[in-house]
């Protein structure tokens, strides 16, 4: 964009890519900075009590003081999120495939899944404590349970939503079932599978914290309750921000993988967004 920059160098190309990125994300970054500045100023000007609303600077200093134990807890929670989420993917995508292609599975298993989906999964968490105790397993299962349903439901929809004419075309080539799956059905299901994966990713962090609320002696959910009980509001804020960052990291990892797996779909969505903008 700049009118003084020399043209044609690699550095220049990189700079313009960065520029493009900033033009796109810059607004959000500025908005976040403005939010924190306004928050800081508002707290200082109004002199509001710290245990009600601490300024961001205080949240930061408190967090740095207890960096090591908090990060150890964050690691515990991250492991629960990632393990439960991966388990949900590994179980639900193949199961979705089976349900989508088997009349029996669709008639027998799918209604059960739809029914189970109605159950408020979080209400089941205490039950897991009874069954599996206080350790890693019940948290993993709650994360699994919450991310499982959006992934399986959208994966089934994805596998089923193939255009019948394209399949008819494929049948006139004599291609094997496997080939039709690999070359047509799977790629066309991926956009919907990724939609489910992203919804699941967003739910996974919530699930881990709730599971830790119910019964735990470590993890960010446990810490959050401790800090809350002590009216240590700066650390409550620090924990919440940390949890959000973990959730965001999982979500963007999935989105990054999506970008590399189905660039044709992502670019289409981006163009659609640009057209709307």
């Amino acid at each position, binding site marked *: 964009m700049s009118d003084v920059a020399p043209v044609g160098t690699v550095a220049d190309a990189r700079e313009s890519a960065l520029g493009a990125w900033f033009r796109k994300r810059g607004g959000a970054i500025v908005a976040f900075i403005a939010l924190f500045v306004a928050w800081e100023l508002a707290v200082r000007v109004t002199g509001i009590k710290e245990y009600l609303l601490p300024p961001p600077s205080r949240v930061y200093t408190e967090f740095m003081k207890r960096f090591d134990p908090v990060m150890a807890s964050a690691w515990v929670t991250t492991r629960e999120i990632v393990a439960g989420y991966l388990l949900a993917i590994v179980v639900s995508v193949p199961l979705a495939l089976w349900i989508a292609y088997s009349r029996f599975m669709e008639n027998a298993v799918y209604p059960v899944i739809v029914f189970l989906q109605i159950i408020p999964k979080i209400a089941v968490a205490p039950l897991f404590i009874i069954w599996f105790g206080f350790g890693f397993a019940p948290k993993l299962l709650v994360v699994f349970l919450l991310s499982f349903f959006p992934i399986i439901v959208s994966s089934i929809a994805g596998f089923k939503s193939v*255009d019948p*004419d*394209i399949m*008819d*075309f*494929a*049948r*006139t*080539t*004599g*291609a094997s079932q496997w*080939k*039709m799956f690999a*070359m*047509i059905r799977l*790629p*066309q299901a991926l956009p919907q599978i990724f939609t489910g994966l992203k919804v699941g990713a967003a739910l996974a962090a919530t699930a881990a914290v709730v599971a830790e609320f119910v019964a735990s002696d470590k993890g960010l959910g446990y810490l959050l309750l401790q800090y809350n009980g002590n009216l240590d509001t700066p650390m409550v804020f620090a924990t919440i921000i940390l949890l959000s960052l973990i959730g965001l990291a999982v979500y963007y990892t999935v989105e990054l993988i999506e970008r590399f797996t*189905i660039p*044709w*779909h992502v670019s*289409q969505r981006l*163009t659609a967004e640009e057209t709307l903008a």
Partner: protein
Amino acid sequence: MSSVEVLQSAIVIDGIAKTFRRGNTETRALERIDLTVHDGEFVAIVGPSGCGKSTLMRLIAGLTSATAGSIKLHGTRVVHPQTALGIVFQSPVLLEWRNVLANVLLQLELRGRDPAPHRERALALLATVGLADFADRYPRELSGGMRQRAAIVRALIHDPPLLLMDEPFGALDALTREQMRVDLEALWLETKKTVVFITHSIDEAVLLADRVVVMSARPGRIERILEIGLARPRGLDARKSSRFVEATDLITSIFLARGILHGTRH
């Protein structure tokens, strides 16, 4: 052309009927269709919407099973999807994650053949349908008509002896449509494939086909089969010939008599 050559039958349709059942409702799509298409013949099928043209095409390709009757392709009864053909559906159905060239080559990849040696031919065919500059574009970047032209190339790339085309020019503008018709005739004259060409356009049917099959509304039946007998290549001039006018008038009068077309009221 039937006088001298001894023509082999590419397609023999014998008493085909098709009824769709969903719950208690039955749709009689086709009723007793008898039709023989000779090797290398160009047959067009015209008929009103919903008379079962697409259903008939799917039956010939073995993509659906008949309620009664049988179909033979080169003497072999059709029971499974047939592979010795190229098929164009009413909608272009391209894969959105493949560019135009890759969509064309999909035909060969699905057949387990190496697509690399066919690249040149694919590009040449794309050029003949005016897509030379779009080989590396994705379907979403193409107009509806361009997508359909890519689908036509995909149906030709493996050089099949039989072409089944379901309103292939339906999405094209009048000009491109006329050009595609002329090009299809040229291609057919060159390769002498057997072609079954479904269309809504009486003109197009008469201008392209050796014989035009006129179908009546649901349940679909063959109303009349017309030998066209216009000299080839027909190109752009055939519209002026008296035989063209005669044939289109006759088909129009059949549709008028069956209430499929209505004249102006007096």
